[in-house]
């Protein structure tokens, strides 16, 4: 009898059960229990007014970051996509390489720069700057990959039919690049909601984001139950935003990119 190939996945399945599933179940366990048994108290505590305000603050920061990344990143992706293919390929590497470079050291570099040359270190602007800096490549990459696949004949057709460049951009290029924009937004918004350490390094502890709150509960206060509950709330928020983005993505591709506005 032949050995079934699915056997090769078994070592991984065991690994997954122990190191992916069990840890997640532990978070759930701590979030929904205390010394006396099952409870919703941790969740209620974690969803306190103060904590929700921190979450709202994080979302606000993440939205600013996403918007700034989109405004700065779209032109980069667009200009790159308009270049000769080989030049664009080479140049785009330079815009994407920072994704793979130690984010902590890059953030630290800003800390040094800001403290030497400006007065904005330890302000909200510094935190925002650090976030935009860290997440910008994640916006450029997906938009760029969508734009280089864009069929140039659409643009020519629009021009032939009498659309001026602005109209072509608004009615053809922008709608067609929507899938890239949406995945860029996902890739920036979600990590920047859950970011940790950027605000500590550049905000000097004055700006408390949700990631820092979870850190505080676990490391400083050692209260695992509340910390786990906070993590569950974060995870729920992330999953909901992702589902929302997925839906938006499906919508744009269903409509073939037209009639968005």
């Amino acid at each position, binding site marked *: 009898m*032949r050995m*079934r*190939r*699915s*056997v*090769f*996945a*078994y*070592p*991984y*399945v065991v*690994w*997954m059960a122990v*190191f*992916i599933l069990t*840890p*997640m179940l*532990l*978070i759930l366990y701590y979030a929904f229990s205390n010394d006396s048994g099952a409870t919703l108290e941790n969740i209620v505590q974690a969803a306190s007014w103060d904590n929700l305000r921190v979450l709202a603050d994080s979302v606000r920061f993440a939205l600013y970051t996403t918007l700034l990344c989109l405004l700065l990143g779209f032109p*980069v992706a667009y*200009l790159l996509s*308009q270049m000769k293919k*080989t030049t664009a*390929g*080479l140049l785009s*590497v*330079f*815009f994407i*390489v*920072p994704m*793979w*470079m*130690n984010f*902590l*050291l*890059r953030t630290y*570099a*800003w800390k*040094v*720069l800001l403290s*030497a*040359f400006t007065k904005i270190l330890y302000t909200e602007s510094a935190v925002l700057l650090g976030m935009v800096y860290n997440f*910008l490549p994640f916006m450029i990459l997906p938009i760029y990959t969508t734009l280089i696949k864009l069929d140039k004949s659409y643009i020519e057709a629009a021009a032939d039919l009498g659309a001026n460049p602005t109209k072509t951009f608004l009615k053809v290029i922008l709608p067609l690049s929507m899938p890239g924009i949406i995945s860029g937004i996902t890739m920036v918004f*979600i*990590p920047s*909601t*859950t970011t*940790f*350490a950027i605000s500590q*390094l550049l905000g000097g502890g004055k700006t408390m984001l949700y*990631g820092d709150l*979870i850190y505080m509960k*676990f490391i400083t206060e050692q209260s*695992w139950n509340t*910390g*786990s509950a906070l*993590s569950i709330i974060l*995870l729920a928020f992330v*999953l909901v935003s*992702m589902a929302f983005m997925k839906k938006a993505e499906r919508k744009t591709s269903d409509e073939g990119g037209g009639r968005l506005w």
Partner: protein
Amino acid sequence: MVNRLKKFFSGTYLGLILVFLYAPILILIVYSFNQSKTLGNWTGFTFDWYTQLFRTPEITDALVVTLSVAAISSIVATVLGTLAAIGLHAMKRRDRMLLENISQLPMVNPDLVTGISLMLLFLFVGLRNGYARLLIAHITFNLPYVIFSVLPKLRQSSDLLYEAALDLGCTPLQAIKKVVIPDIMPGIVSGLIMAFTLSLDDFVISFFAGNGVDNLSMYIYATARRGVNPALSTIIFVPVVTLLLIVNLKSIREERNAELQSKKVGMKR
């Protein structure tokens, strides 16, 4: 004229964004050759920061930890993940979808939650060894990246190859080794490289899952208040950028060759 102006503006814009992305690091690298302790005050050229770097045991230890964890975890994840992908590919659709969805969890999960969940597990089972904790955590978050870079290659290749190898007398392991693996090699290699770079770079998961044994990111975090030796930026960035440039330039060159090839074919027609 208008065209030239357009070119000038687009070039300037791209240049400015590149400056934004690279200036902080380049300034740190320049500053690592400066005698003065304060930025913006050039007092003379020196290698002192570098000699000091290699005389600081915390840094050299962290460097060894970072590199060894990255090497071991990426290799283990590549072996486990490649086998997993081969197994998953052969499974029934329903089982495969379930396992693939669970596998995506570490990619979907915020790093923070992954790190904390592993921390809870390690505390729960009483695993104290910081190095082992880092290794397990890195293998775990590397695995999905390997699996999802190998799976598409498996879909592209034909199952009949494996069957044929068995019919011709290979054992399943031989068939995997001699027929399937060579066919999906590009996916395995890109998975390995991705796993290695992710591991080199990780901070959040290591910070929560680790225990006392620091990698470079954790060291930087711990010393950021006092000030980090700027020579560290050179040590980290030059190899990473070189590696990534080599990998990317290679693929660009291949692409260009393919393009030229197809052009030639087109012309012959």
